[in-house]
């Protein structure tokens, strides 16, 4: 048995210096289901990119950090708040959902 306590884990990551994406209506992609997640993007002030993850799979903080770093390296966006509800999605699924969310921004995915 794991010694990780039951319950949700909340993780926060933040990045700065991204390209501000400007105002946009909230974007929601994905569904909170087994092995899946939902990602919501909202506009925020400044050039920061704040990521908050609520996940039922505890103890994967370093992997989330790596996925978030990888995302920001691909999409250095700023002025964005990213909120995730996760039910045990794999890193690949998380990355795809993040890409999907960015693609739904009004100006599309920056290259």
């Amino acid at each position, binding site marked *: 048995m794991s010694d990780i306590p039951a*319950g*949700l884990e909340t993780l926060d990551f933040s990045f700065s210096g991204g390209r501000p994406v400007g105002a946009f209506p*909230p974007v*929601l992609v994905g*569904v*909170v*289901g087994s092995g899946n997640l939902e990602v*919501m993007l909202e506009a925020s002030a400044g050039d920061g990119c704040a990521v908050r993850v609520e996940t*039922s799979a505890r103890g994967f903080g370093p992997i989330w950090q790596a996925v978030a770093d990888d995302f920001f390296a691909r999409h250095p966006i700023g002025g964005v708040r990213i909120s995730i*509800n996760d039910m045990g999605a794999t890193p690949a699924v998380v990355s795809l959902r993040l890409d999907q969310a960015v693609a739904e921004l009004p100006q599309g995915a920056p290259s």
Partner: protein
Amino acid sequence: MISFAECSARERLALLFDARSFHEWIAPAERLTSPHLAQLGVPSAFDDGVAIGRARLDGHEVFVAAQEGEFMGGGVGEVHGAKLVGLLQRAVRDQPEAVVLLAESGGVRLHEANAGLIAVSEVMRAVLDVRAAGIPVLVLIGGANGCFGGMGIVARCADFIVMSDVGRLAMSGPEVIEASHGVEEYDSRDRALVWRTSGGKHRWLIGDCDALVEDDVSAFRAAAVAALKASRPVTLESLEAEHALLDARLHMLPIEADGTDQATQLWRELGIEQADRVPDLDVDAVRALRIA
């Protein structure tokens, strides 16, 4: 052709109603989430598994709700149910031309069972209030999770039900019947049995749904458009007629099962031709089989 069953709730809203006409109330960014799930270590959804709002259907103003079957099986929790009730109560006030519910639910969400049970009963009352106001309530059932439990009752409280052949509508779900009555009574893994007794073709043949369509978003849309004026007043006479119909159906089958398939037997008793072939027939062919 786009499969209704494979769409998410939000994809259905986007595809079924007039383009870009859906305006959501209590959108995900408002974060009106379940107050119960986090205590149980279960992640919440920003919309608590249901999107509500207004939209246009072939130009007609309608109020709509879509349940997301992938989130907790579409289970009705406290907030989810309250959103449905609020939508229906607002319909009584604002008088849209119809209310369209895209139902996909296993019923009450067991994680918040008491609140969910109360919520479902409130949804039923609100549906009847909308009908009493002369506004038709249409229920569209075609999601992979079917429409069961309290939402099954809600559906049957509505004016008009559209189902696809892959859709299912019933009170207790297959696993629940098996758990309570045993696998000899009902084998929930027997997919042919499950669809013979709760699937769209069965519901069509015995008169429990009002339109049978292919698993296609545009077919659902066309059926919903055709049903926009389907208001049916709830009267004592209509209730008594329904009771008489159910009583007659109950007596069509022998009390002791003799091993033959009872769904097929019921179709035969109803006078439906080719009853044996129903599972193999396509939707068009089954649609033509219904007696009046």
